[in-house]
């Protein structure tokens, strides 16, 4: 019985309160641990001029980073497939981008260099 009775002994009430707090603490920690998601994606050869690697699914990603094996031009992208969110960052060698966790987004890395090469990606939630 977890409901504290007003007639219960003070020590019993204290014991139940401690146990309740402990349960909340454990559940909070466990749920926080399970809420976090990160993923290495890509690592495969991608065709020149716009081929891409992609995360295995959409998550509330807040960070996406990509790197390209030939140090060439690449893009990292966080997007919803409905197009309501579509942020693209371009650079040479590596690319990172941040986002708010509002949407369930896919993470991508594009080979925008002139030759076929390997693109690596990493994305994570909060």
């Amino acid at each position, binding site marked *: 019985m977890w409901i504290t009775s007003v007639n219960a002994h003070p020590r019993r009430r204290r014991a139940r309160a401690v146990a309740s707090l*402990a349960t909340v603490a454990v559940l909070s920690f466990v749920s926080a641990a399970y809420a976090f998601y990160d993923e290495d994606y890509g690592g495969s050869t991608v065709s020149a001029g716009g081929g891409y690697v992609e995360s295995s699914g959409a998550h509330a990603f807040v960070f996406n980073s990509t790197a390209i094996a030939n140090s060439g031009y690449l893009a990292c992208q966080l997007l919803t497939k409905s197009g309501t969110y579509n942020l693209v960052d371009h650079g040479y060698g590596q690319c990172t981008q941040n986002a708010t966790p509002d949407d369930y987004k896919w993470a991508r890395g594009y080979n925008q260099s002139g030759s076929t090469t390997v693109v*690596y990606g990493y994305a994570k939630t909060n």
Partner: protein
Amino acid sequence: MIHLHDKVVLRVGLVAVVAATAGVAAAAAMATSQAPPAPVRPGDARAQLDAIKRYAEQSDPLVRAAGADPAAARPLGRDDRGMTIRAVDGRAARCVLTSDGTSFCATPEQVRRGQSLHIRNDCSRPRGDMRITVVLPASAVSAQLAYGVGAGAPMTVAGGVAWIDARTPAAGDATPVEIRARDRGGRLLPAIPIPGGFCPAD
């Protein structure tokens, strides 16, 4: 007087508190006890990404992976949308940070080869925001974003970095093709090409 049942509940509770505390402490220790990574060989993309991942829980992980301290970055100015542009030098690269969380680094070799730019596009709508930022050669004092036709648009230059806010070109719009920087004598430096592909699609 505490009943046996309550003692059991209390002990379970205390064990749970200790376990939760230990778990949080372990997680915190994992997040803070990372030693600085060894310099990453240029071109080793997997190692470069791993170096960035080590700092993924902190701000500007790419800058930290380049051996630079984001807190030491000096402000250069603001872009048209009010974002602060800052710069800091790392082990072997100059890094540029924008207050919206964007950052990139360019080595002297990348600057020499005209591969020292970063472009951000909001591709969620036609003609969405586009910001172009570039680390310039040391002798550059001005820069212009050149479109295929017509006059270019002047870029803001400070601390060896140039930036401009523009719009992502829609079909039929003039497209920026390169950045033209000039030295103090007005001489044109080698152009920095803009590869395009602003909004890649399936």
